[in-house]
């Protein structure tokens, strides 16, 4: 029988924990990362079918892609039936494929689990289902953990959000996919724990007496809320669970939509629907690769040549066709994170033909995401109501996950519960640690 670990498979970041001798240990799974205990949930698959995760994937992606050459070739991708008034034939459908593309970077893998209708994606000549992609990622984590622990890992407790999806069948499908992917990755035994419950288990370690706790797990993909009684390991009670699919990635998208699109022509070329499609796609990391095709490139170059907002469209052209979109998303995310600790930050990107400088204030950010705050407050109040407890009966509010550091949401919790009851757990590792504790019970 091998070892048991807990894996927090997060939307933006993941982690692996191992519990031994009454101590939980977060494994330094990504040595290249500034925080080795956190590994980015990013997978990079190269043309020769090799795969990389975390910081290594990011670095390789940059090395391979930024300012590289492209060469598009026409490739058959399928066929459609054509029916005219007096004719019928089957027409082959072709797509322009960049034959020099060295690899494909896959982000927000976890989001694919809850995206209805998304079954997988084509990476070069192979179609990868969502399960295939997750299998590859988990296999990397397993191998790295085995190297660190020096022993084989046979069982895993995986974290899962309270609700992958509001639709029960989609929710079940997501968990089944994740389960099968873990089995395919080489784990012989797989079980699940709700991510906020895992965070609660970690928090429980610091308790000296029983207490009702609200876990506010606000990460990159979802917000999960659990209200439970902790402190007596044999008598844990879950009063209520709640959640909503709003999180860090939605805030990034909002910043891009509300602040960044004018840098790429919005407001000047609104009459050019073909180009505006590209501009709007900037907010959607999944749509952008689909639109970076030769036809769009020609349209952009023609518009630049015709003097239609040439500086901004050149910026757009460079961003899309020099593979700088990933850097752009990182710049936006970094500015957002800075706003958690400072009143202003700058979204800054300096490359050849790109000069973006956007001074962004916390006041404006809070205004931009105000709608989300209202929805989150509603879910929070509904969950508390379902728990049957009133505010005074909840002894502590434990916030975890990167987005829980956004001051607007800390203030929301402090206004409801009082500052002294709101406690910050380790934003990126408390769920992982809790899953490690839970995994130790696997046999």
């Amino acid at each position, binding site marked *: 029988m091998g070892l048991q670990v807990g894996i927090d498979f997060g939307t933006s970041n993941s982690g692996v924990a191992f519990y031994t001798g009454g101590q939980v240990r977060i494994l330094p799974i990504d040595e290249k990362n500034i925080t080795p205990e956190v590994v980015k949930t990013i997978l990079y698959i190269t043309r020769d079918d090799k795969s990389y995760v975390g910081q290594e994937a990011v670095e390789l992606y940059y090395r391979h892609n930024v300012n590289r050459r492209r060469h598009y070739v026409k490739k058959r991708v399928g066929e459609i039936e054509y029916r*005219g*008034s*007096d*004719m019928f*034939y089957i*027409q082959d459908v072709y797509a322009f494929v960049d034959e020099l593309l060295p690899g494909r970077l896959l982000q927000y893998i976890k989001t694919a689990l809850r995206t209805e209708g998304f079954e997988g994606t084509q990476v070069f000549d192979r179609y990868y289902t969502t399960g295939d992609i997750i299998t590859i990622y988990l296999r990397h984590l397993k191998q790295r953990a085995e190297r660190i622990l020096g022993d084989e890992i046979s069982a895993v407790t995986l974290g899962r959000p309270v609700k992958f999806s509001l639709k029960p069948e989609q929710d079940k499908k997501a968990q089944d996919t994740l389960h099968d992917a873990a089995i395919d990755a080489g784990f012989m035994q797989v079980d699940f724990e709700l991510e906020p419950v895992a965070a609660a288990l970690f928090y429980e370690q610091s308790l000296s007496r029983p207490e009702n706790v609200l876990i506010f797990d606000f990460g990159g993909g979802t917000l999960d809320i659990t209200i439970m009684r902790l402190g007596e390991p044999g008598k844990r009670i879950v009063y209520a669970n709640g959640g909503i699919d709003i999180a860090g990635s939605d805030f990034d998208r909002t910043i891009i939509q509300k602040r960044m699109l*004018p*840098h790429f022509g919005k407001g000047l070329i609104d009459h050019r629907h073909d180009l505006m499609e590209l501009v709007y796609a900037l907010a959607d990391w999944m749509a952008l690769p689909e639109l970076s095709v030769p036809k769009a490139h020609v349209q952009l170059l023609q518009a630049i040549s015709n003097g239609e907002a040439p500086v901004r469209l050149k910026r757009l052209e460079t961003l899309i066709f020099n593979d700088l979109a990933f850097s752009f998303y990182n710049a936006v995310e970094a500015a957002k994170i800075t706003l958690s600790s*400072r*009143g*202003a930050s*700058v979204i800054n990107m300096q490359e050849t033909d790109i000069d973006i*400088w*956007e*001074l962004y*204030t*916390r*006041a*404006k950010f809070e205004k931009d995401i105000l709608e989300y705050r209202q929805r989150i407050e509603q879910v929070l109040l509904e969950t508390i109501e379902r728990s049957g407890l009133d505010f005074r009966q909840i002894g502590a509010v434990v916030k975890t996950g990167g987005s829980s550091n956004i001051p607007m949401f800390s203030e929301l919790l402090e206004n409801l519960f009082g500052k002294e009851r709101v406690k910050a757990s380790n934003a990126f590792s408390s769920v992982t640690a809790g899953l490690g504790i839970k995994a130790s019970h696997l046999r």
Partner: protein
Amino acid sequence: MINPDKIDEWIQEVEQRPSSAALIIQYIANRLRDLTSRNEELLAENIGLRSGRKVEEYESRIANLEYQLEILKRQIGGEINLMTPAAVEGLSIIAYQVDGKVLRFEVAFRDLASGEILAQIPPENFTEYLHPRLVITSPVEELLFVFDSGRTVNMAVADVPVITAGKASWTSAMLVEPRGGEELAAVLPIARMSLFDFCVQVSRRGYVKKMMRPSFESHVAKNFIGTGVKQKPDRTAGLTFCMKDDLFVLSSREGWLTCQGANEMSYTAEDTLKLSATDHIVSGFSMAKKKSFAVITQNGKVIIREAAWLEKPVSAKGRGQPIFSPARREAGVRVIGAAAVDENDWGAALCSDGCVTAHRLSDLIAAGSLGESSSEKTYLEFVLFNAAVPN
């Protein structure tokens, strides 16, 4: 991009959190420093442009490129000829039958004289309904063979073997092979299709369908353009390219004509002429910029009319305008071809004895006929070619 709204945002942030003021000033100061530095670089570049230093630099580069080009010319042994290819000085006469047999004859254009025999097609039981059809075009053309199933085959004229004079035989003709019951319905030169807006497909029973040129190109690439018919016994009579402002004319064998603006035509097959059971369409042509059109009958008569003679029908299902009197129709006069013409055009007529003769249109207009005909010798087909075609 700094505008008043953004400055208001910064002020609002400072009002909410005064500690942000220092941070915002610091960010703006850093940005100003960067911009100042960049501005200096641009000013320096501008001075270089105005002083002519950049011009000298580019002149030096051009001189270097010219030198490299000269070296390249010497390496490949002479001047690079960027002129257009030499004009093609000949005509290809393509004769084809419904069973897919195709003959090609060549004639030198310089030697062409009105009344000259262009080719002698072996006569094998020709009738007025079943005879070879003609296409006369340049040897560097591309042909589109259209079957009644809607299937097409592309082939360069040069790929069709040339028949040596006196040795023509249908048994040794090239075969554009029909598939399961297909018949070869039309052949169209397509090398110049990119110059036109539409391709019009006409059926024997008077159905007309236009295709936008890009769509037609796509269909051709897929080797299927559609049958262009709505009734089972019907089939394609011909295809013609035209521009969107052109007037398109149809002529039936019994001498009924109708016309329609190309822009007004339907993209689906629609009937345009009410034909009798024994009648069918023999020609569909575009007037283009020409002022007259010619109608040729099986007894060799040439009827010339001005374009203004044509009247657009009130109803799409009318009988059209008669080109000759009922008495002549009852006497058995039938149309074998019609086309928009001017005096410089050339036409070719196929006779029942297999002779293909060339005729200058100015001579036909003057004479009013192709030549003598008799009960044994009738004309079966008339096609047009003009002086611009051979190039």
